[in-house]
């Protein structure tokens, strides 16, 4: 399935985030996938997803400009495919 702005999702419980100067590394212990989160903003969003009712709420709460919504959606969709995120 494809996420939309109104979808809700959260970090997968088997995923660990490691901060790095450019953002963070996300590692899934189950499927051994390693994903680079290449901007501090995407790290903040990913950490907070589980605390908000939808992706849109999270993006606004993190102060992400709406022009960037499409990029964030694309990124979150990719993270869902890698199971870094799970759909709620």
């Amino acid at each position, binding site marked *: 399935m494809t996420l939309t702005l109104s979808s809700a999702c959260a970090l997968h419980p088997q995923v*660990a985030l*490691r901060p*790095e*100067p450019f953002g963070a*590394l996300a*590692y899934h*212990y189950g499927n*051994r996938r390693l994903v*680079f989160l*290449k901007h501090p903003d995407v790290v903040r969003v990913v950490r907070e997803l589980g605390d908000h009712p939808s992706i849109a709420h999270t993006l606004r709460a993190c102060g992400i400009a709406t022009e960037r919504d499409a990029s964030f959606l694309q990124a979150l969709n990719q993270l869902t495919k890698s199971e870094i995120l799970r759909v709620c």
Partner: protein
Amino acid sequence: MSASQLVTQLKRGLDAPICLTWELTYACNLQCVHCLSSSGQRDDRELTTEQAFAVLDELRDLQVFYINIGGGEPMIRRDFFDIIEYSIANDIGVKFSTNGAFIDEKNAQRLAAMDYLDIQISLDGVDAITNDPVRGVGSYDIARRAMDNLKAANFGPFKISVVVTRHNVDQLDEFKALADSYGAQLRITRLRPSGRGVDSWNDLHPTNEQQVQIYNWLLAHGENVLTGDSFFHLNAIGEALPGLNMCGAGRVVCLIDPIGDVYACPFVLHDQFKAGNVHDAGGFTSVWRDSELFTSLREPESAGACASCGNYDSCQGGCMAAKFFTGLPLDGPDPECVIGHGEALLAERQASPVSITPKPSKDHSKPARSALSVVS
């Protein structure tokens, strides 16, 4: 090609390695002629169980997600299971490489019961005639028995690790079929002239023609075969092979040897590439973050003699270890440069009256190196 922006970032280094190789012991039941760590006998200074746990504590704090355990034969250590269990309990996933000698039925079951564990069995020929001259008499049967035991214990998809040589390069399809028959994953890697490989590389490394053969085979089998990004020097042939296409040494990977010395990568066990020791003040963390060697490896490299060749962007000048142990300058072509620039330089070196190829700094080979011969 993979994202250049990410690669630029990775070349500048990270706060902690992505994956690190840790050799638990120099002791080994085998004496492979190409062994990169010149293993055989245990070193008295090897880390104790407590010291090993302390290293793992540090790696946990650094959030190193995954370590690659090797040696020597890591399963020879009496505390092998204690160490890997401690690691996994601390959220550090483990992959270990083994020649298989100690994977009997009982150990296979014990291993199969563990989570976050990958196993890599080494095999350098699809039959004993090809494998045993490199890895030792009986080593083919040992490896196959280990694979049988893992399969019987339902371990799941283990890895079969093949170092590609002049003698097994024609067997790549058969290796793949063998891996498939076990439900295993095939991993083929490049032979480096490291350790005892300094002496056997000349006879074992693939010919120029065979390199093209490897390249074509990898293009055809792409994503289904693991390579550890080890064949990026072949990218000068044409379309890039899947992978990061970069030297990881001191940037995203490193090696901890059995006595705690930290090197840039497993293939450069030489003082020149030693960054420090886990016992140093500040521990592994300081070595990784602040050592002079690692800092310099993260600076932009110069193409040197490769600058005039149009292929530098695709092959990156090849492997530092391969150049170093064949006596070639580090800022120039790889000895296996597919354009032939390395070969020319090597011929010059070999014609020179003084031998200038560096020897590995440690040698733990067993004293009686009898019956070691390389097929030719």
